[in-house]
């Protein structure tokens, strides 16, 4: 049943994407970075998960998203043919991601995040000056780049960033930026989220803007509230949006609750 709900969602996602694809603008990026994230979604467990992320950079802006989300979006826009639908769903299922967001930075003071709650998309911006960096004199070489350490507080965590002047872009993974060089390693003090640069390629890459069309603009507070509401009552939210459980509602509810319970350690907490 849950699986069915997932497939239904994926199909819905295809509809959105295929519908909007033709009008979306093309952005070309000069640098593609790959980050590997090791994280603990369940703070009570010792089992880490890993996921790859992509950071696309040009002179004006950057785009940060999970690699699987990127592959999903590419697959959706590539398969216009309805006969491909079955393969597409299989592909989407193979490339699941725990991170649905798109983070677009127009410089470090204009960061727009598009994220999903159930199957509604919301976008919000960060408050200006959300990162106050403290530089340290510590240096070391990471992945062949000379790097310097800086620290900041953000989203309820203390973060340590290693940045390199060798890549003179004020960029980094997630919502992190504003240092005089690319952040190549980013770790929170509890070592629950750890981004490591494992790829950098300088070549032109043209990409369609794949943010869904029906995005609700909101503020960060509202988005986090919506997400908490969904987490508190996922089945209710699903039913409100028109999903009807013909059987096994309690079983699905139990499984969804279980899943949410084990996903208790987000990268960012909302700080009032």
């Amino acid at each position: 049943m849950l699986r069915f709900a997932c497939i239904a969602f994926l199909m819905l996602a295809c509809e959105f994407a295929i519908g909007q694809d033709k009008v979306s603008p093309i952005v070309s990026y000069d640098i593609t970075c790959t980050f590997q994230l090791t994280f603990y979604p369940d703070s009570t467990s010792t089992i880490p998960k890993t996921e790859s992320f992509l950071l696309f950079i040009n002179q004006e802006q950057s785009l940060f998203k999970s690699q699987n989300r990127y592959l999903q979006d590419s697959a959706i826009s590539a398969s216009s043919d309805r006969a491909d639908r079955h393969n597409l769903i299989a592909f989407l299922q193979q490339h699941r991601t725990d991170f649905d967001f798109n983070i677009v930075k127009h410089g470090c003071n204009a960061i727009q995040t598009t994220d999903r709650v159930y199957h509604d998309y919301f976008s919000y911006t960060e408050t200006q000056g959300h990162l106050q960096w403290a530089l340290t004199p510590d240096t070391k070489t990471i992945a062949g780049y000379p790097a310097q350490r800086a620290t900041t507080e953000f989203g309820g965590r203390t973060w340590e960033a290693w940045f390199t002047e060798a890549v003179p872009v004020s960029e980094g993974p997630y919502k992190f930026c504003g240092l005089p060089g690319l952040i190549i390693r980013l770790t929170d003090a509890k070592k629950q989220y750890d981004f490591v640069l494992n790829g950098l390629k300088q070549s032109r890459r043209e990409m369609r803007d794949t943010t869904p069309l029906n995005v609700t603009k909101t503020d960060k507070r509202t988005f986090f509230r919506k997400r908490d509401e969904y987490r508190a009552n996922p089945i209710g939210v699903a039913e409100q949006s028109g999903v009807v459980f013909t059987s096994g509602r309690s079983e699905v509810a139990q499984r969804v609750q279980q899943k949410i319970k084990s996903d208790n350690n987000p990268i960012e907490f909302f700080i009032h």
Partner: protein
Amino acid sequence: MDERGTLIPNANIAILDKNNTISAFTFSDHDGSFTLKTALAVDTLAIKATRLGFEAGLFLVPNRSQSTQLVLKESALKLQELTVRAPPIILRKDTIDYRVSAFQAEGDRTIADVIKRMPGIEIKENGQIVYQGNPIDKYYINGLDLLEGRYNLANENLPAAAVSKVQVMENDQPIKILKSKVFSEKASLNIQLKKVTTTGSAKVGVGLSPALWDVNITPMIFKRSFQAITSVQSNNTGTDLSRQLDILTKSSQANIPAPALSIQSLNTPSISPDRWLDNRSHLASLNLIKKTRNQTELKLGLGIRDEVQQQAGRNYTRLLTPGGIVEIDEQIANRSDTKALNANLLIEKNTERLFLKNNTSGQFGQIDGDGKLSRNQLQTDQQLTARQTQLQNSLSIITHAGKQLLNINSRTVYNRRPETLAVRPGVFPDLFNAGKSLQSISQDVFTTELDARNSISFTRQFARVAFTPMAGLNFQNHQFESAMSTQAGDSTRTHGNAFRNDLKYLYLAPFAQVGGYYESSKWQIELNLPFRMYAFRVSDFTQNSHQKQTQLAFEPSLTARYRATEYTDFTSALSYSYDFGNPSQVYSGFILRSYRNVQKAQGAVPVNRILLGRIGINYKNPLSLIFINLAGSVMRIINNLQYRTSIDSTGAAELTFVLNNNTQLSRDVHLGIGKYFGGIKTSLKLNSDVGFTRSEQVVTDRQVAVRNRNYRLGLSGSTLFTSYLGVELSGNTHFFQNRVADQRQKTSSISQLLLAIDIYPGKANALRLDIERYATRGSASQNQLYLNFRYRYTFGKRKIDLEIRGTNLTNAQNYLSIVNSAFTIAESGFRLRPRQVTTGVRFPF
């Protein structure tokens, strides 16, 4: 601003301290302006300005409040790139991904070359792939099981360059409808290709001396819903082609029973067949799979093989008999011509709602053998003809019936096998002609078998537990006929009942069982409780005797797996079962099985009760790239019959038995460790076995215990620490100890050491040197050394290889193998292929 005076926004401006670290920084505004304060107490400030698209500028300014202008030079800044290096192994739940490029060496051509380097995976000599000590159950290519277990054809011909990753799915339940309802201990392997493509490889080689050829053309097509592998191969260079058609997985296909008659042959050496196989082999194979829109797969497999083999050498056998030691010394020159054809047509639908699989297959084979043997100057000719026909159909249906899963299985196998062995001059004159010599003797055996197995079961799920009641009926009908005729002078005589068999063996086993399966995130437990009733009827028409026997058997089995952590799991199994031998053990008339082996048994149905226990631990760590498996097993067999072989001074063996319960006990421990050192591209593997068996035998009317101990230790390593040099080293030692009653025999051992060195002096050149050393110790001992080399020149983007190979450079003549068992010592000297040189071209499509 830039050199033309254009203002630069968003540039990094940083103040460096004396260690070149940044002590303060800012970014230029839209109008290119910036303000930067510092608390550094130095006279001169180092300011660094950087911006994508410009050369970094370093400016020295005096340390005071001031306004200054920084000018940057435009340049296409080349960043220091970092190539994504995916880890060599990724673990996701029960799936392990091995990235092919991480394990591939310069000289590797086929995917098998690469798989053998992967930690946790082992490729056996026959090509069988073993993961963590257990053979794989399925070999998929892009998720489709094209070859139904005949995977050598793909594994040894698919170019490694076409493959992106090799996946191992642990506890893979290939039947979708049974997922998380029926436990699977098996691991499956999937070859994930880089793209849907047409690929394959071709190889053409010629050589001396004598004239040699080696041709292998294997094109392959892999599309989303269609795959095909065709192959045409022919050689006389010692490449064993039969393995390309061997089924290497445990499948529903019935085995072809071994023939009853044989030509006296030599022990084949335990070294690579291309050192000794004197062959002329041809093979063609066609395999297709088509997946339709409604998830139905159609598969067709056709294979044809024609092979002439010759072997020459000497056998020396010492038999310990009650009457003393019998020594047999034989010079052997055999030639056999084998023709085999197999065809199968399969339809399979595998969805979450229905599993349907019907496999119809036929195998036809013919062996014509010709053996020339001389024993103590006496020439003996043997001629063997055996024809084998096997037809079978298996059907399996699993579907939902209400809330249950309904599972129907049906398999019918038909075997037909006429065999004839002619020996000239005749042997065993005492037995066949009252001591007078015979010109020839001819033995005919004709076997037909019908084996049908049918079962029906229902699976019902209650929360985490699934129950499966099952009922079924197995039926076997064997017919076994034999006749012997001898020629002495001008008269041909067909012998009477003592030398004839006409046996009908009927076996009927209805059974009922209940099975339970429990699964949680940590545990998987399966329990089966079957009751079977075995009913036999053996009718011996020559003796005019009929025996009936029924036996009720309770054959429980328990399998469990516990996942202690994501990396560690424990498995165990316990079972109790019955085995009732086979009809070839109940005939009562003499059969001449080979020129010096005439046998009879007196018909009673053997009842073997088997208790089997197994426990194992598996550990795999994809981050530190270490794989460990440790398994121990105990098997206890209680036989109701005790066999006794009596051998007279001519070497004639007669098999008899007494009704006497006796126990056979065996214990085995296996340890496998695989470790990959990513930084230095080095893979290390260790495999070791310790085995112990104890059985009771009757020797000169006295019951004695026979104990065997086996120790095997295998270590192998391969490294590619530079791109110029690759080294593979493997060593294998096998000790065998035997004790009869309290008498201890001499320990025998076989050791082999293989060293292969690959040198890549330039981009296109590759040189490989193989050194093999074998040492045998026992009743006799020997050391042997073989040298082989290969030079390969690769050109073009398509990687076309030109090769020169030299085999057996030391020109070793014979391979001596020694087989010791409780009552025999057999030494076989096998003539090897001489020194030979071949040259060829090889290219991927």
